């Protein structure tokens, strides 16, 4: 921008009194350069994140208003296959077949055109009226095909001796077929049916309820057990380092490994847990832990607690170790009992980290997909919203319905994050 006038205003402004002169206002050249550098450094990140996060988010809104199934992902196109039966002698009549079809059962194709190159020495007895043969280039116009169109074009052909001697075959050159079809994903045909069906089904409310139960109990459980574990390891004793590492195992191991281990451990037929319970006389016959209501949901919550208590444990322990010990000594001198010290001294200090952890874990437990998917596949009353996205899109093959559930998940997330940021601005600790 060449705006030299800005530096020299045409009218002389009244000079401010010297006393009021503070630091320069507005953005100076240096600050501008700094901002430019900052955006330059950030640009790659912002670009790639928008590409992979923002774009898909917009796409999911778009798809949720579209009647798309899994099969519609393949673009609608004309399909041709060529078949030639070679005659035994030259001059004998033979057949060249083109099998034609529309790949889609519900989308029309317009302006279908076929081109192919015929080998030397092959003569077509009668060229159909919609086709032309120029030199060796064979072309046909088929016009428009309705959905599910299927046809066969049979040409009577003869070949000469040179053709037979050379062992030529018209199938050696691939026929090319082209046509225009609207893409279901990119056209402007919308429907609210996905949402209407979602909100009118009883299943959805059950899924919502399961999600809430799973999220609340999973979060609170992991937090409480994390707190308990942190209290245990907040003492000095031999082997503490080993235990601290050990307690992090469930979190560090791949989810797929530990989930399948749990499934194996609690298997109703060959699971060790059932064998143990039966042998100890706790139960008479093996229990199907991951296969019956409401036990499956409880087990999934227990797994969630087992897998994520290490995280809360780590944060809470870090906070505990930063608390000044003088205070405890003073409380001890004043005759406070251990439980009183915990409740009236430690807990208030831990409240901040506990609430931040609660909010974060709440959101991430809500978002959790892998664990339930691997443990139960969403069966036996454990289907949460995220698992439902997968079920609708891939098991039922209705991408549009899956996207509608995903939109609901995203809406919930937005609500949570509003809470979260309200809270975080007060509790900027993490």
């Amino acid at each position, binding site marked *: 921008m060449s705006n030299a006038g800005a530096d020299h205003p045409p009218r002389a402004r009244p000079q401010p009194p010297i006393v009021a002169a503070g630091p320069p206002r507005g953005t100076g050249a240096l600050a501008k350069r*700094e*901002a430019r550098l*900052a*955006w330059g*450094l*950030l640009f*790659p*990140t912002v670009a*790639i*994140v928008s590409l*992979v*996060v923002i*774009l*898909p*988010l917009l796409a*999911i809104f778009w798809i949720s208003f579209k009647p798309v199934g899994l099969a519609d*992902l393949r673009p609608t196109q004309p399909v041709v296959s060529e078949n030639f039966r070679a005659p035994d002698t030259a001059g004998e009549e033979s057949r060249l077949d083109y099998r034609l079809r529309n790949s889609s059962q519900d989308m029309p194709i317009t302006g279908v055109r076929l081109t192919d190159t015929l080998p030397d020495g092959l003569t077509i007895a009668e060229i159909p009226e919609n086709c032309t043969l120029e030199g060796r280039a064979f072309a046909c116009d088929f016009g428009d095909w309705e959905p599910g169109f299927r046809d066969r074009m049979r040409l009577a052909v003869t070949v000469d001796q040179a053709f037979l001697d050379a062992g030529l075959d018209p199938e050696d050159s691939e026929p090319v077929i082209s046509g225009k079809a609207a893409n279901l*994903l990119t056209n402007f045909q919308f429907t609210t049916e996905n949402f209407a069906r979602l909100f009118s089904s009883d299943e959805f409310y059950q899924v919502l309820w399961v999600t809430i139960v799973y999220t609340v109990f999973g979060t609170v459980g992991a937090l409480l057990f994390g707190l308990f*574990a942190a209290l*245990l390891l907040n003492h000095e004793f031999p082997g503490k380092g080993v235990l601290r*590492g050990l307690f*992090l*195992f*469930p*979190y*560090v191991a*791949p989810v*797929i*490994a*530990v989930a*399948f*281990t749990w499934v*194996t451990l609690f298997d109703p*037929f*060959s699971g*060790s847990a059932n*064998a143990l319970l039966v042998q*100890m006389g706790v139960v008479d016959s093996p229990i199907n832990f991951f296969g019956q209501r409401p036990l499956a949901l409880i087990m999934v919550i227990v797994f969630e607690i087992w897998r994520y208590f290490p*995280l809360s444990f*780590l*944060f809470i322990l*870090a906070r505990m170790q930063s608390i000044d010990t003088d205070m405890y000594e003073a409380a001890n001198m004043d005759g406070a*009992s*251990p439980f009183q010290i915990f409740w009236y001294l430690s807990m208030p200090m831990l409240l901040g980290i506990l609430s931040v*952890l609660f909010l974060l*874990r709440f959101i*991430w437990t809500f*978002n959790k*997909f892998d664990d339930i*998917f691997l443990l139960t596949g969403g069966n036996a009353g454990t289907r949460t919203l995220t698992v439902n*996205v997968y079920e609708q*899109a891939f098991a039922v093959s209705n*991408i549009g319905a*899956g*996207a509608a559930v*995903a939109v609901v*998940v*995203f809406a919930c997330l937005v609500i*949570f*994050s509003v809470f979260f940021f309200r809270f975080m601005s007060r509790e900027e600790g993490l």
Partner: protein
Amino acid sequence: MTALRNGFVLGPLIGVLWLFLVATAVAVTLSFATGMAFRPGLLGVLLFGLGLGAAALMVPRLALAAGAVALTALLMLTPLAPLITGPQVSTLSFILGAAMTGLGAALPLAGMLRPLPRGTATRHEAEESILHFLFWAGMVIFTAAVVIPFYVMVMTSLKSQGALLQNPLDFSLDLSKGFGLFRSYVELFRDFNFGSYLWTSFYVSVLTVFITLLFSVPGAYAVARLRFRGRAALSRSVLLIYMVPMIVLALPIYIAFSMTGLRNTITGLLMIYPVTTIPVALYMLQGYFRGLPGEVEEAGLMDGLSRLQVIWKITLPLSLPALASVSLYIFMIAWNEFLLAFMLLDDPSKFTLTRGVAMLNSSEIPRQHLMAGAVIATLPVMALFLGLERFMTKGLTAGSVKG
């Protein structure tokens, strides 16, 4: 409440609870180790626990332990056993069971009840011994809960299908088989292509780490150090993006990749993985950069370095520990990633390790293969974690609550 604080009430009470826990733990341990039948005897636990709790107040520690072992062994021959053994239990396991129960009950119990007097205790004394009990109980429960699944994972992978079905509890190893114990592993590497999955997972994770750092280091520096309009908003949206559930993104990514032919390619995976980790890395690194002294950088600027040179020559060398923890954490995320690999990869020649393990979960493939696959997937990340635990825990706490 005051009655409960009496040493001879609280002591036996804790004694019963603790003995029950110890007897159960010993029963589970021995059952899992030998495959033989052990279980806690409730009546025995109740009577013996009461006695032990009272005795702990009067008898010195070592005498208590010796007495407890002898008495446990004796009681185990009667119906009042705190640890009931099945008919085919060997003498060695029997003695082991008695010793573990007796020692495990008596020694910690003596410690727990040490604050208690032989009469009414003060609130302080009573709570202290309850806390001691809770400490030990927590130790046993947490350790068991963490160790048992991993133990089962490793041991199942070393057994044969027949042995597992015959007695699911028997995890004792037939050491005479020698190298034959690792049959499942050999088969996985030979017939199921696991060597290639291991390699794929490894290079995908390493590349993810590099790409992530390449993007997030400049970004984090900008957010931490430079002043520009929209910094706060940006910092927040980083956190917000970090909360978007993967499954919501996975669906459009699946569609886009299906249409562009990026599905079933490692390139496609490498386009997505770093983006899922960049926000985490950016968030962690900016926290660390903020903590670095700004004066050093300013000195560099004064001496004529450009900003980029400052980052390269001053900030990065100073933040090596943070880079190590962030890299480890990202490696862990990429290595453990399952959902995207599962949705985007169908071709067995391109599987990552987690996708390969998921493939083993079928009724035609025996369980020990699945568990061996799980062990193969777990071992490298565990080894890395244990070797570099200091960095890892720092990385985990430095602003990552993701899971």
